[in-house]
């Protein structure tokens, strides 16, 4: 596993690979290529957002351009609808619970693995690492039966607990590597002063662990916010659906009215896009570095 403390933050702008200036011709070629790729990324997104402002008839004739008459009602009808806010809050509740438990349980277990010697510790770490090797889908039917037997079908917990369980491997891995790389002098000093493990965890380890808490938190939040298969299996009532399930239902209901579906998609991905632009540095670094190190 990579040493987290020596790993560089990912920051493209400050790291030219070559000391030479780029020739003008090369520069033009680069910009043209980058702009073409950027267009392929952005055009579907913008067309989706603009499509939500059109009528179905206009969508047929003019899928790319600006709408001739902006149909604000497509959007406002969704924004004032209960279902949109219900789905958003369902997603948010599930994601926050998932993040909280993934962080708490993961950090606690990882602390034991990083600092305490006990019989079977290495085996136990490897046991958790098994969880990194296969997706939740492989055991989804027995998982459904287990959740049903626990009486958690159609509850938030029925989604949260499996998500936390399948996130445990990642969380423990990242936390353990980080804890082990904290300077060992801290540890020695604390124990000379008679500090126990519990106080060490609360007063020294956790306050020093903000970066890794952010990384694990971002990974598990994004995973939960976007998750589809676990809620799909565990939830029955539409009133508890998170938004990815909501999109599918909405599309099923309004399958003949693409403009409404497009407005709905736009509004549901809007929080993600806003959050991404606000916290892009942390999100990109968290998702990339986190994936590499676990």
């Amino acid at each position, binding site marked *: 596993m990579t040493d987290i403390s020596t790993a*560089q933050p*990912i920051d*493209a702008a400050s*790291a030219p690979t*070559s*000391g*030479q200036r780029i020739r003008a011709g090369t*520069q033009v070629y680069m910009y043209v290529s*980058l702009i073409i*790729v*950027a267009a*392929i*990324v952005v055009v579907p*997104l913008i*067309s989706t957002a603009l499509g939500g402002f059109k009528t179905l008839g206009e969508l*047929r004739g003019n*899928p*790319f351009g600006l709408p001739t008459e902006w149909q604000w009602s497509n959007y406002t009808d969704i924004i004032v609808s209960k279902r949109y806010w219900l789905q958003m809050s369902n997603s948010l509740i599930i994601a926050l619970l998932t993040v909280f438990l993934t962080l*708490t349980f*993961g950090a*606690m*277990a990882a*602390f*034991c693995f990083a*600092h*305490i010697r006990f019989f079977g510790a290495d085996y136990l770490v490897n*046991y*958790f690492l*098994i969880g990194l090797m*296969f*997706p939740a*889908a*492989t*055991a*989804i*039917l*027995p998982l459904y039966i*287990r959740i049903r037997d626990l009486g958690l079908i159609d509850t938030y917990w029925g989604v949260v*607990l499996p998500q936390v369980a*399948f996130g*445990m491997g990642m969380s423990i891995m990242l936390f353990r590597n980080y804890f*082990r790389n904290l300077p*060992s002098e801290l540890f*020695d000093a604390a*124990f000379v002063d008679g500090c*126990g*493990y*519990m106080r060490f965890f609360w007063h020294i380890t956790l306050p020093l662990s903000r970066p890794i808490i952010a990384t694990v938190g971002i990974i598990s939040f994004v995973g939960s916010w*976007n998750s*589809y298969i676990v809620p799909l299996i565990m939830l029955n009532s539409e009133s508890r659906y998170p*938004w990815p399930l909501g*999109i*599918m239902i909405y*599309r099923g209901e309004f399958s003949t009215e*693409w403009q409404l579906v497009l407005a709905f998609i736009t509004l549901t991905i809007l929080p993600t*896009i806003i959050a991404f*632009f606000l916290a892009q540095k942390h*999100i990109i670094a968290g998702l*990339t*570095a986190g994936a590499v190190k676990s």
Partner: protein
Amino acid sequence: MSANAVPSGNTLAVSRRRKRSLANSKWPVLILFLPPALLLFTVLVILPMGEAAWYSFYNWNGYGSPTQWVGWRNYQLIFRNSAFTQALINNGLIVLASLCVQVPLALWLATMISSRIKGALFFRLIFFLPYVLADVAAGMIWRFVYDGDFGLVAGISQMLGVEPPFWLADRDLAIYAILGVVVWKYFGFHMMLFIAGLQAIDKSVLEAADIDGATGFQKFRLVTLPLLGSTVRLSVFFAVVGSLQLFDMIMPLTGGGPSNSTQTMVTFLYNFGVTRMQVGFGSAVGVVLFVICVTLAFSYKRVFMRND
């Protein structure tokens, strides 16, 4: 375990006191800190996987307890099912697309963004954006793009004055349309891996190449590329793992159709096991998927990522 826990005190007294305080606070912490993770992980990850292996030998609808033992029949049915064969082929195609399209594309973009170019941060941001969107949303957006009546493909066809194609409804072409979406969604992530890989390269090696009069392309082929080996292997590894999990994106695009031409292993599990509540059959598919995942993860790490 780390050496941190071993005290190296100056005097015997300090060391003894410290040891006692450590030993005293060790067990409460273990008893308090380990069980939540251990319990949750065992009950909801390990046991279900074991149960999948058990259920896979039964014909069971999920109610009561499994009684109808069928031996290896579920497994025989899986490998005789042409939709499953198609799913295996499709999973392979996704890995292939990643190798032949995604990795070169990501590497190419990463070298451009890592060079001294204005707006690099902006492009990096745009390219990474699809990766943070939910697969379901990306799938739905591209269902609109590919729509021959209302979507962007329809618009382009109008401009060119040709009949619009319906790629997602064409059993020979649908999977390639999906491959396009997979690349669109994930190239930004792989590009970030390469950007990180490029940063880790020692600049003095490239400067040495400059002094020796190497051209840009020579530097790339003879210096940068060989040094990026571990990143390429990592990128391919993520593509393989991602391909084996692909489900969310397929559902809004095609749901596995038309006539099973775009099934992946997970959509196959869902369409044939979950929706029909065929717990035995679905569990057997899960076990096959598990064996493939673990074998690939182990052997790939052993063979290709040994030195990374």
